[in-house]
């Protein structure tokens, strides 16, 4: 395990992409940064630009209009990048799977490394998902 790989595991910078989510998962993501959970203890922080990100966190059911933006964001991200599908919508489509503008869950368009189900997933579940992602890296 090289030094850069150690650094990668110790410092995950997350870019959060809302691909048509109802904002509920997004609020739970912010909960993870709050004093009770404080994921900065593990070096995880939110960044403003996907160019600085190590994890692309996608929430939402991916409506048709969002597909080009989702793919472009993934292509712009510097590799290696881990993609996490957040929430029931991100993993499967959830209650929107029969919607007229539903364009498939996240893994139909970009490769996904970890799935965090739940509607919305609890902060504990998000942290558990990140731990499983770390085991995979």
């Amino acid at each position, binding site marked *: 395990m090289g030094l850069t790989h150690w*650094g*990668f595991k*110790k410092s995950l*910078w997350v870019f959060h992409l809302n691909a048509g989510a109802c904002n509920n998962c997004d609020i739970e993501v912010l909960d993870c940064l709050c004093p009770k959970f404080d994921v*900065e203890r593990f070096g995880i922080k939110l960044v403003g630009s996907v*160019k*600085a990100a190590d994890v692309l966190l996608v929430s939402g059911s991916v409506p048709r209009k969002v597909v080009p933006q989702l793919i472009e964001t993934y292509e712009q991200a*510097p590799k290696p990048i881990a993609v996490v599908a957040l929430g029931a919508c991100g993993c499967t489509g959830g209650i929107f799977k029969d919607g007229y503008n539903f364009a498939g869950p996240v893994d139909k368009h970009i490769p996904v490394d970890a799935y965090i189900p739940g509607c919305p997933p609890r902060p504990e579940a998000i942290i558990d998902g990140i731990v499983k992602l770390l085991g995979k890296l």
Partner: protein
Amino acid sequence: MASTLAMVVYFLVFPGFLFTAAVGLLTSWVDRKVSARVQWRVGPPWYQPFADVLKLLGKEIVIPEGARRAGFLFAPVAGLAAVVVVSTMLWLTNLRGTGFVGDLIGVVYLLTIPSLGMIIGASASSNPLASVGASREMKLILAYELPFIIAILTAVTKVSPMTLRIDGILEHQAVNGVMLGSASGVIAFIVCILCAQAKLTYPPFDIPEAETEIMDGTHIEYSGAILAVVKLTQAMMLFTLPVLFITLFWGGVDLTGIGILWTVLKYLAIVTIIVLIKNTNPRVKIDQAVRFFWGPVTLLAIVGMVLALLGL
């Protein structure tokens, strides 16, 4: 030849690149930890900034379409080099008394290079948000440089035959007591801390890299190793500016015996003041920042200057 080798060691190892980078990264950990404690969180472990930089070194560098490659890639490196030179000059002056006439001018000049580098890099990146950030950074430089230079000239004025040598200011303080013991010194120090806030682009003056409105602004297109250089430059600035203020106003750096403890305490005190200002203030708009620096802060700096001329 031996002196050339010594200079290489000075610039690359001890007071220069490696030392400044290591202490700068540790200082940025202090920054993050104090911020976390202010927000009632636990905060990251001490090696966090090192892990960040190592990780960034292993990532891909994405160069945006339409960007000017050379300007985009070399501007941050120029900023890093400037900080290394400033740090080396300050430490050599403090520890060995080597200086030259006008080295203070050199330090003030070199300390603007990182900001200028970010302006050039952001303008070369062909990103509209980065351009907004660059334009704001430019206005911010125009705003804070005037009071910053007046405050530094206050320290120059207080030395009886006025001198632009840093070691002259240090000798004056060794004989007559520190600058902070006088009213004008305190005023100049306060002005310097406020300008440091803007130089580091920390809140309330983080307008060029506002995360919520222009998504990191000047840094938006940087990734991989070149982002590591940008982060390293910021960390080294956070180390160099307090050392400059200690040198000019607080008796200088002393690495013998109990002096080490005092130096570290002075340094941590200044860093903590900067971090506390950062954590307790909201971001202002660019016009408010310019008005603040050209109005009250410049007036305060001029008052300090007049007091210094009167010998207070």
